[in-house]
């Protein structure tokens, strides 16, 4: 389980804190989604979790232990992260890439064990990327690359997976496939923490939603509790209505056209 407890982050040379007293938790067997407008602090949460942004207050706990106390390597065996952007610089093979997910499990001298190979095979099977295994990561389409990145995160073998906007640039089919996979990981016992702009999809898949606004939690709870027109309209600063999707019954946000001036 990942717990954010009163987390605050200040970037140098910025007047306002990027995160200001954010508290919520991402328990096992649940899909927890963080949503919010651009610049609301979503990605800073992820950066703070991997120690790339320093906390000015509060704590982030993984399985009860503060992240800054654990080594990066130990932390990586518990939480796998799929960052927002990852542009491969060199043409590594897909299987080698997924195998790098085992990095935190390998010692300086120890090679790959049978357990490492099994974890890679399982991750490739779960993400249905076996047909890509002999390709280079620089040759993949956007959808293939996201699936392969997920495979790498799964191969890392932790109980928690954190994803920052994993479906940006993906078409509907690929996007749904990613959400279904995340749902499955949560059902299998993972703590899945998803940062996303896709409010309507998140409302269908997430167990809990956390709405961030200017570095603070504006609303948190079940999708039905968070998907309220009034608060969303204020946070996104745009006219909108929340209806119920007639096909699937989930709350759905419909942005309206700009109000005529005058």
């Amino acid at each position, binding site marked *: 389980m990942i717990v954010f407890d009163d987390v605050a982050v200040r970037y*140098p040379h910025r007047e306002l804190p990027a995160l200001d007293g954010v508290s919520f938790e991402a328990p096992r067997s649940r899909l927890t989604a963080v949503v919010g407008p651009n610049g609301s602090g979503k990605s800073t949460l992820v*950066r703070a979790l*991997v*120690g*790339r942004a320093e906390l000015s207050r509060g704590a982030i706990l993984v399985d009860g232990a503060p992240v800054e106390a654990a*080594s*990066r*390597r*130990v*932390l*990586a*065996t518990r*939480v*796998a*992260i799929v*960052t927002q*952007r*990852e*542009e*491969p*610089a*060199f*043409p*590594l*093979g897909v299987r*080698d*890439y997924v195998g*790098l*997910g085992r*990095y*935190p499990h*390998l010692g*300086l001298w120890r090679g790959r064990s049978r357990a490492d190979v099994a974890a890679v095979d399982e991750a490739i099977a779960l993400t249905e990327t076996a047909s890509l295994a002999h390709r*280079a990561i620089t040759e993949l389409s956007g959808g293939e690359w996201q699936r392969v990145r997920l495979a790498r995160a799964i191969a*890392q073998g932790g109980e928690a997976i*954190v994803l920052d906007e994993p479906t940006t640039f993906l078409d509907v089919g690929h996007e749904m496939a990613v959400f279904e996979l995340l749902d499955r990981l949560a059902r299998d016992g993972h703590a899945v923490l998803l940062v996303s702009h896709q409010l309507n999809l998140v409302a269908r898949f997430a167990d809990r939603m956390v709405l961030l606004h200017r570095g603070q939690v504006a609303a948190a709870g079940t999708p039905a509790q968070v998907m309220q027109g009034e608060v969303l309209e204020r946070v996104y600063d745009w006219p909108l209505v929340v209806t119920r999707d007639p096909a699937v019954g989930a709350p759905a946000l419909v942005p309206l056209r700009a109000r005529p001036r005058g």
Partner: protein
Amino acid sequence: MRWLLLVLAVATAIVAGVMLGTLRLSPVEVLQGMLGTGAPMQTAVVRELRLPRVLLAALVGAGLGAAGAALQGATRNVLAEPYLLGVSGGAAMGAVIAVALRAPAALVPLAGFAGALGAVALTLLVARAAGGRGDARIVLMAGVVVGAFANAAIMVALAGADASVVRGALWWMMGSAADASWGGVRGLALYVLIGIAILLLLARAIDVLALGEDTAAGMGVDVARVALGVYVAGALLAAGTVAAAGLVGFVGLLVPHLVRMAGARTHRTIISAAALAGAALVVMADLIARVALPPAELPLGAVTAILGVPFFLARLRRLA
């Protein structure tokens, strides 16, 4: 199979390097020279001149190739090379100061080495002061700044110097394996082997670092520490080769590309193969430098650059 070819290439280059020169030797004569059973002249040429020179060139190439491969991976930048981080500028400044002060010739390489170390330390300090904890871009830019400063200082120093000083400094900057001795070979061998071993230990972390700093942090790599390790080991390797043979350009930039073009993917393979390919390349280049325009010798750095250009053009065509 590819490893066998690489090892064969190094061996062939070394044998050719010992056989060819102003005095041509047959393989049998080389063997006799090594065993000391041939004519005294043969023995002297093989043992005291050619073998140390060829081995020195091989070590220089191995160090530059491995350092370039590791630095390109860790910085995710295919233009990174071992002379980055101010190594070349600092080394040249040290050497120029030594030449200008009319220091004994034996001290010039040491001054170059000291200058390189000083420049690397300054680069890392500047990057740290700028707040770039393991941020490759900031370290690269700091290296550019320090290198530019060193080059400016050299030009100022040489502007008022007399012709012999300018010539001596320039010749040293162009690189040469001509001053090889067994002592130098032994020292450099130890140095290069340790440097490459450190880079190989970091190879798996470099694979992860090459995916980007945020991703690497999430996968358990201590980004700042691994990056610093690669910079320091790579730059020290480069500085050591500079002390032995001056500035031998293009090898550390080109060889990692060749190795990746040949299919090497993980950095353990890329660094090892780049060490072997670099060794073969510099031995061949030194051979060409000796035999192309006898009795004059071409500067080694010029030959490696000339050899490198067509490869690089081919690479550009592939990238485009």
